[in-house]
């Protein structure tokens, strides 16, 4: 087995990398903050955080010259996208206009359309529809959600979540690429366990 250094992508002014770093460390992982291509080459796994808008995130990745290197790295290194970090794995995003994503997962990111308060904010359960190493043992846990957009995808879904009768994609997997709509770093011990699972992948 190779090393197990987790690279946390640091892009833009909006990153909430502080809390994700703490949570991975709590789970027993070693974290390295990735600011450029060279640092991206020196890590074994990738975590893409995200606070902000789809458009802004993609602009920042481009500005930091991380966009193309990240697209390549995702194909060979186990990757976990969190919230917006999952959403930008998609082909297209519709937040503040139409923006091209990393196009790793064939999906689109659209506003949540429900007859209820948006953003969907708070703890909610997940319904694991396909067993997978990331969510192993977490099937009956609650996770913290905080989003106004959802990923629309039909092929790589591993869990769904119900918000007032509306079911949306709460996690995805395609080979070694994972994405969660919720925030494991804000989901108490269940979230720490998820990071432990990711470390062991």
């Amino acid at each position, binding site marked *: 087995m190779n090393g197990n250094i987790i690279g946390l992508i640091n892009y833009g*002014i*909006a*990153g*909430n*990398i*502080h*809390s994700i770093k*703490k*949570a991975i460390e*709590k789970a027993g992982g070693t974290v390295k903050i990735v600011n450029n291509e060279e640092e991206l080459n020196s890590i074994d796994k990738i975590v893409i955080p995200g*606070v*902000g*808008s789809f458009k*802004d995130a993609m602009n920042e990745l481009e500005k930091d010259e991380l966009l193309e290197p990240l697209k390549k790295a995702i194909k060979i290194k186990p990757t976990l996208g969190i919230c*917006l970090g999952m959403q930008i794995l998609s082909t297209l995003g519709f937040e*503040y206009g139409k923006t091209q994503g990393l196009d790793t997962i064939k999906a689109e990111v659209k506003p949540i359309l429900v007859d*209820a*308060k*948006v*953003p969907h*904010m*708070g*703890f*909610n359960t997940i319904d694991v529809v396909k067993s997978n190493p990331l969510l192993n043992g977490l099937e009956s846990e*609650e996770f*913290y959600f*905080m*989003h*106004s957009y959802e990923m629309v995808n039909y092929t790589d879904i591993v869990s769904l979540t119900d*918000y*007032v009768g509306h079911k949306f994609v709460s996690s995805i997997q395609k080979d070694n690429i994972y994405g969660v709509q919720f*925030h494991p*770093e*804000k*989901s*108490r*011990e269940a*979230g*720490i366990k998820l990071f432990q699972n990711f470390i062991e992948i």
Partner: protein
Amino acid sequence: MKTRIIVKLDVKPPYVVKPVHFEGLRKIGLPVDLVKKYYEQGADEVIYIDIVSSLYQREILFDEIEKTANELFIPFGVGGGVKTIEDFSKLFHSGADKVAINTHAVQKNPEIINQAAEIFGSQAVVVNIEAKKWDTYYECYTDCGRIQTGKDVIEWAKEVEQRGAGEIFLQCVDADGRQRGFDIELAKQVVNSVNIPVIVASGAGKLEDIKELIEYAKPSGVAIASLLHYNKYTIKDIKEYLRNNGIEVSK
């Protein structure tokens, strides 16, 4: 949807204090110790408001916030003295997941809500409203209930939603710290006037107050301070009580 039980920390650095009617401060403890306690009790979120930053017109104390965020694996909202996009950014990098703004947005530059929402996403932008009741309407106050703005609370709530705020944190100048129940009419009016989540603070004095508020106004979350700070109840007690009364809360 599960109603969130949120702890409110009114901070006059370095201490968490508990004002009555936003005045007459009592020292409660250090934020870092209190968040540990409430995290272990099962809080869904913590909101930290530096209640003197705007009033004293001094810089936000980022180090204090970072220290508090360190061991907290639940959402952490921070407010008090936020004036610029750079403040938002620095707070997120200090460990905040949401940033609450009041004084600067309502008095000087509401446009900052639009800017912040575009950069950081709506979900991270909270507008803190301090409401004061008059005969026929509620007025927005700032600087910890000291300064009048002339703005109507309901109009302002609608405006901040239009501008891209993702949540409203509603406090009530008349009820805060008194532990005599929430202003449930105010809460209901605000909840019904917007489509974004509303967190209601100010007034929990007994468990029934929380139940009454949730049943009547249906807020997305309830913020509690005195009841917890004076160890009348734990978060576990509150959640158990609500669950037994048919109100959905998280584990």
